[in-house]
């Protein structure tokens, strides 16, 4: 049969991963932990400086001008939502790969999970933004007049999400933290020792971690999806009068997953190029994630279309006004860009298998998607934050578009810079790739002779 004989025809780089000894994995993993290197350190410092500038801009602009003018806060909200749909979505990807028990995921997981470390940024931003969220009386919201809504409940969700994220990240890196504890020099020892806790690698501990990591990931996803649903409603749907749509939270979540995958691919590309992870992040990973990115680009279109067709076909004045506002007139160009960058370009590029099966192809598309997602979020949040009177039942006149000023841009860049800085400094503590997972995979793979060729055999333990 044809499929057997084509066994080892492609993925030469990949072979390398599975021929490595655990010692090699350990060395690679500890490289950045031992020394970050001058270039990378300066990148981290620049990112940190951006983050500080952003924080200052946040204080200079929105915080000083207060909560009365919601529009000033638009880009703070954009930064918050953008981080929520990229950095916070990436760990969901790692959960999905874990649950599906795919073996190629092993080096990828850490690249996705590490973004959970930035959850503190959106959490802080959310706490700041809470003041701009109007109360739920006299206007539509999904909270139906619950006490202290939306502030308290949103904050609880955000805090739970951050907690779940940090817990997931900590748990999935626990065995590696112990390795770092045992291998690293004195300076960071105290912190890491405390993080690694009583991990000794006993049989019981291993059994527990293997069981709990999956569940922690599932828990994270189970918190993430309702959080995004609530955010979609609080920040967009209920801010645009007459925007009565049930699919938007799903669209918001799905497009976040798309951006999360893109972010992971980009992280992988950076680690491969500058992190010396060539042996671990090869064609197999990029190819598989490229397929997923393509699938989610198609889903982006599907969920957008589900909403659009209903509004367009219903053509009540309420629906037409909303369409004009967020798609057809006021935010026409942002919408077109978002459509092109989130769906059209990724589809046109990734539909070709040779492009999918390369390093550069998925990476470029990942960059495109990240930009597209940002534009999409800018479009939606600006639209939501620019309606003067949100107590009306439908849009009677279409508000003007909100044009960002320099301060807004600095806030946005600062939030992203701060997140990147956090991740870069995390690499000083966490090994990459995930040592325990990659070596664990090495045990389960063997090269066996098969008919006229040699094939890889993958163990599937329960």
């Amino acid at each position, binding site marked *: 049969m044809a499929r057997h004989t084509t066994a080892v025809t492609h993925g030469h780089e990949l072979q390398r991963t599975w021929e490595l000894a655990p010692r090699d994995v350990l060395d690679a993993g500890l490289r950045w932990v031992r020394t970050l290197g001058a270039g990378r350190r300066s990148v981290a410092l620049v990112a940190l400086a951006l983050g500080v500038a952003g924080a200052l801009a946040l204080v200079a602009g929105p915080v000083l001008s207060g909560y009365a003018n919601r529009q000033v806060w638009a880009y703070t909200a954009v930064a918050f939502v953008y981080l929520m749909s990229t950095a916070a979505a990436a760990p969901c990807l790692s959960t999905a790969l874990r649950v599906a028990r795919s073996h190629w995921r092993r080096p990828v997981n850490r690249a996705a999970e590490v973004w959970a470390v930035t959850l503190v940024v959106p959490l802080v931003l959310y706490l700041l933004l809470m003041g701009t969220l109007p109360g739920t009386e006299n206007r539509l919201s999904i909270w139906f007049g619950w006490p202290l809504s939306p502030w308290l409940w949103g904050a609880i969700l955000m805090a739970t999400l951050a907690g779940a994220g940090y817990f997931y990240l900590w748990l999935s890196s626990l065995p590696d933290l112990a390795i770092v504890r045992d291998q690293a020099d004195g300076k960071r020892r105290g912190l890491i020792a405390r993080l690694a806790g009583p991990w000794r690698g006993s049989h019981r501990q291993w059994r527990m971690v293997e069981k709990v990591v999956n569940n922690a990931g599932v828990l994270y996803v189970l918190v993430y999806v309702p959080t995004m649903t609530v955010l979609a409603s609080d920040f967009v749907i209920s801010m645009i009068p007459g925007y009565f749509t049930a699919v938007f939270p799903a669209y918001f979540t799905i497009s976040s997953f798309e951006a999360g995958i893109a972010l992971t691919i980009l992280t992988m590309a950076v680690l491969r190029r500058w992190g010396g992870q060539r042996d671990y992040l090869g064609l197999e990973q990029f190819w598989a994630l490229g397929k997923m990115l393509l699938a989610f680009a198609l889903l982006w279109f599907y969920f957008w279309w589900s909403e659009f067709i209903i509004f367009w*076909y219903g*053509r*009540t*004045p*309420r629906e*037409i006004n909303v369409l004009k506002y967020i798609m057809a007139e006021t935010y026409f160009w942002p919408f077109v860009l978002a459509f092109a960058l989130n769906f059209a370009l990724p589809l046109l590029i990734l539909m070709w298998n040779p492009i999918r099966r390369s390093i550069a192809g998925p990476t470029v598309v990942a960059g495109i998607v990240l930009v597209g997602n940002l534009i999409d979020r800018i479009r939606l949040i600006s639209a939501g934050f620019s309606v003067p009177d949100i107590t009306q039942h439908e849009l009677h006149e279409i508000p003007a578009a909100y044009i960002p000023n320099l301060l807004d841009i600095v806030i946005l860049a600062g939030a992203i810079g701060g997140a990147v800085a956090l991740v870069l400094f995390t690499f000083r503590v966490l090994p990459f790739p995930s040592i325990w997972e990659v070596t664990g995979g090495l045990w389960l793979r063997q090269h066996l002779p098969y008919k006229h060729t040699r094939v890889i055999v993958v163990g599937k333990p329960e």
Partner: protein
Amino acid sequence: MPRWGMVIDLDRCIGCGACVVACQAENNVPINTEDVYHQRRAIEWIRLERYWDGEYPDIKARYIPVPCMHCQNAPCEPVCPVYATYHTSEGINMQVYNRCIGTRYCSVNCQWHVRFFNFWEPKWPDSLKNQLNPNVTVRSRGVMEKCTFCIQRIVKAEHQAKLEGRDLRADEFTTACAQACPTDAIVFGDLDNPNSRVAQLVNSAVNERGYRLLEDLGTEPSVYYLKKVDLEAPVEEHSSHQG
């Protein structure tokens, strides 16, 4: 090109039902027996809805005749797979019986419930067969039917005008329901012709007591209602749709 429309003055309507009877006679509408009513399958191109205003004993009966609204942006039209329901260039929402296959989607999507389905083959007693209007198709089982604004009268008037080489005159003919209305509550005519009564009523009444049913759906009905003037009632909010 005329744009046909109708104004129904609820202040004049006494709920006599003459319009319903006239319509049945004019348009070969099947006879609704008691059985059919119990099955909720009665066909009335214009129907008289009665509702109560107030609480007993201080209660008043209100009537509202409901024909097809002939929406300019009709929800029933795009959902028909075979073009059996169709918008003419004169603003009439037409039903082409022969084209209809009876998916009943138009009726599902019609919020005024003015589209009717022939669940059974319509039957007339022999004595009534000769009263059928030869200018109107007799519908068979399995097709939708609805108010056509008495299209046969429109076509006839238009042909007459054409043969005489002139334009249509304002109000030179009217529909069966309007013709039969004893209080002149129903007015039919060309909304675009400033000389027609219906246009004058619409233009003068829009700001006062004119409204259209379920206007918020944005379907642009061609049937306008003039609100009841209740001298005893306290001043109340103007409501865009009947409640």
